[in-house]
């Protein structure tokens, strides 16, 4: 009898890139749910806009580059990029913010470098950084969390805010928007207030900012599940959170009136999203075990630095982008000892 030949190994593979992307999206669910609950349905609209744009852009770019577009789209990486970008945007950011962001992320962040696997920078964070630098005002206008809002936004209200910048029932749009706790902290401390005064404000909750603490808990839960399933390496989130927690603890102990508690840092802004979902983007992160620890720690440290002394309230995007650049070097110097070679 005759058989077709094939090279070893001959076992059917158990993992696939598409599956990994899908699982990561699933793991985002608790965080997204918390955002939905705390900041209204705007996040869903952002997600829909960004994902649709990303898919259209990806398929157009693949066609332009004469690549098989079905294989390229079916890996779900464009969807994941769009989702990571969308959940970082303010819940009532104007529609073109999501669209532009996704477009930038896919075109500049990913396809111009050669598509999946070849991009040196995290595409979602490229999109986010471009938006933040180009349109700082709509990018920093958040909503108050549900328990502070006079009238929580319904889906239609959110849509009209996103689509034509109109608040519900004739109220002005600007009345809806609000600074984030990290933002408030920064400006208030800048005005010479003490930490106690700042944190007694309505925006601050038991752990960190109201609303934000839930969102962070949501992403933490999803992240732990990713770890359990072995879909991300533990070293990156561990390094990230340890560095951020350690640094903030140190400074807090030294000057509690100038620096917020480590808990605040860990559960504020994009901390958990960044530690488990953004810094762990395999394509752009360090890949050796030791390298990942260093990489994560440097991002965490940089986040603390930017938050404490930098020009932006949250530093996750810039910290990640900066360390993306360093990843190849970190990898080079943290190669593990190979069997049979002296240590």
């Amino acid at each position, binding site marked *: 009898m005759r058989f077709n030949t094939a*090279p070893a190994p001959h076992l059917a593979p158990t993992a696939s890139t598409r599956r990994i992307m899908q699982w990561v999206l699933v793991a985002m669910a608790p965080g997204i749910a918390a955002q939905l609950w705390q900041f209204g349905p705007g996040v869903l609209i952002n997600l829909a806009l960004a994902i649709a744009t990303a898919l259209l852009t990806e398929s157009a770019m693949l066609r332009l580059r004469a690549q098989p577009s079905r294989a390229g789209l079916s890996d779900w990486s464009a969807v994941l990029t769009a989702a990571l970008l969308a959940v970082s945007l303010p819940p009532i950011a104007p529609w073109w913010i999501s669209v532009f962001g996704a477009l930038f992320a896919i075109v500049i962040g990913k396809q111009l470098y050669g598509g999946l696997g070849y991009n040196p920078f995290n595409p979602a964070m490229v999109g986010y950084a471009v938006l933040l630098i180009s349109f700082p005002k709509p990018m920093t206008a958040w909503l108050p969390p549900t328990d502070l809002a006079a009238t929580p936004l319904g889906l239609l209200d959110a849509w009209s805010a996103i689509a034509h910048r109109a608040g519900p029932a004739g109220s002005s749009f600007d009345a809806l928007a609000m600074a984030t706790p990290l933002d408030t902290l920064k400006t208030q401390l800048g005005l010479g207030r003490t930490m106690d005064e700042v944190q007694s404000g309505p925006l601050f909750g038991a752990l960190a900012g109201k609303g934000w603490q839930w969102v962070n808990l949501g992403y933490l839960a999803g992240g732990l599940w990713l770890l359990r399933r072995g879909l991300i390496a533990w070293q990156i989130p561990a390094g990230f959170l340890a560095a951020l927690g350690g640094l903030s603890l140190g400074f807090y102990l030294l000057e509690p009136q100038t620096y917020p508690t480590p808990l605040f840092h860990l559960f504020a802004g994009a901390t958990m999203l960044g530690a488990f979902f953004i810094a762990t983007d395999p394509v752009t992160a360090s890949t050796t075990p030791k390298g990942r620890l260093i990489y994560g720690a440097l991002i965490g440290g940089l986040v603390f630095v930017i938050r404490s002394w930098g020009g932006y309230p949250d530093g996750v995007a810039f910290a990640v982008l900066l360390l993306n650049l360093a990843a190849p070097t970190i990898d080079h110097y943290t190669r593990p000892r190979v069997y049979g070679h002296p240590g």
Partner: protein
Amino acid sequence: MMFTLHRFHGGLHLDAHKEDSSLAPLATAPVPPRLIFPLQQRGGQNAEAVVQVGDHVRKGQVIARGDGPMNPPIHASSSGIVSAIEPRPLPHPSGLADLAIVIDTDGEDLAPAPEERRDYRQLAPDELRRIIFEAGIVGLGGAAFSTAVKTDPGHRAIDTLILNGAECEPYITCDDSLLRNFPQEVLEGARILMRVVGVERCLLGIEDDMPEAIRALREVQQTGHYAGIDIITVPAIYPSGGEKQLIRILTGREVPTRGIPADAGVICQNVGTAAAVFRAVARGEPLIERIVTVTGKGIKHPGNWLTRIGTPIADLVRYSGGYTGTAERLILGGPMMGISLPSDALPLVKAANCVLVTGRSETTGPKQALPCIRCGACADACPINLLPQQLYWYSRADNLQRAEEYHLADCIECGCCDYVCPSHIPLVQYFRAAKSELVAKQRERFKADHARERFEARQARKEREKQERAEAAQRKKAALAKPDASEIQDAIARAKARKRPPESAPTADAAPDESPPAREPAEN
């Protein structure tokens, strides 16, 4: 007794699929109508036929001989007529043909009168090695390296013999079957090998998912003749049966890169090889049969067969009930490292441990490779602690120098990285291609270096001769004139300078060996 096991990096927990074949009792395969013996042995060296077409041969008779200790003889595995010595497809994915001896069996299975039993304790190691060589024994774990050569410690200090019973590839159960059915032969073989190698300690490593085999071995060991032999269960992690991995697990030592196990003070043999050594030494039987696993969803009745070397795969499959309707791929060896064959007309050679016929559900379909997402799963799985994604990157970019820096040459081609890659990149294929290119380059470099050194040595010699001639002429001149004190001083100094060997002057015999150092590949 407490025994500390050492861990190796990476490795995989794979579905074993061992019960398919291990549940059936060991059966003896009938003599097939036709036996085929390829003359090409390890490393492309051909043995030469010592019989002619038309000759009648007996079971156990030498039919081909090689040209050195690396190339042990081949014996007929049953009696019959040599019907052809002609090119036949080799058990290789290419299906390339090379010379083979074909014997039409006569069904009589005639053998010469059995030799007298020998008491091997009276024999010197060299004599034992000669018997092992003459019996045609090679490593039965898959590498088929000449056992006589591999058991020669040479100048290296060896303190441990390792017997490899850690059959780590899924599906394969031939060693399990051997250990269950012939535990005594294996342990006796271990004693002989200890004597050959000159060690007091033998560690027999066996995976913990082979309880019956462990029990059988321990029972025989109870009889008490086996001082110095330890039976050690190791966790069933692929590739714990890889030579380098097993050495690390059992001794904590590592085979240095580009070295052989002997450099770590150990010599490693497969358990099947040990049994073959026992039969050869104690009973005078050459290596003409071995246990072969026939298994997979493509086989009707999976099991283990005591099979004559030279039996065509098709016959063995027939004895196993034939193929099922879903038979898809024919693999010689295990699913991780085995080679896939184009046809079942190929014969089983000495190293053949398993015929795996996968069903459609078991094998990889045509998988489309996606770009590497640098997830690092491959690096986590690599038992050598390499960075496969980097190696892939450099091999693909033809940056062989970088690939070398990242220790491409240390890859054992175990397939762990390939199997876990979510982008389904055929990593091992890339590594294999890059490695063969590297080897070719190295060969060229060796040749070039050799030529350059010879040239330099010649230049240096000419230079020296010229100088010596000049000096001789001067001495002559000086001898003619009346020597004064200062000239005598000069002459003495000159003589002294000549006596001192010229600093690192290259000579022709200092040139390195032309071929790269020989390496023993892993068993199993």
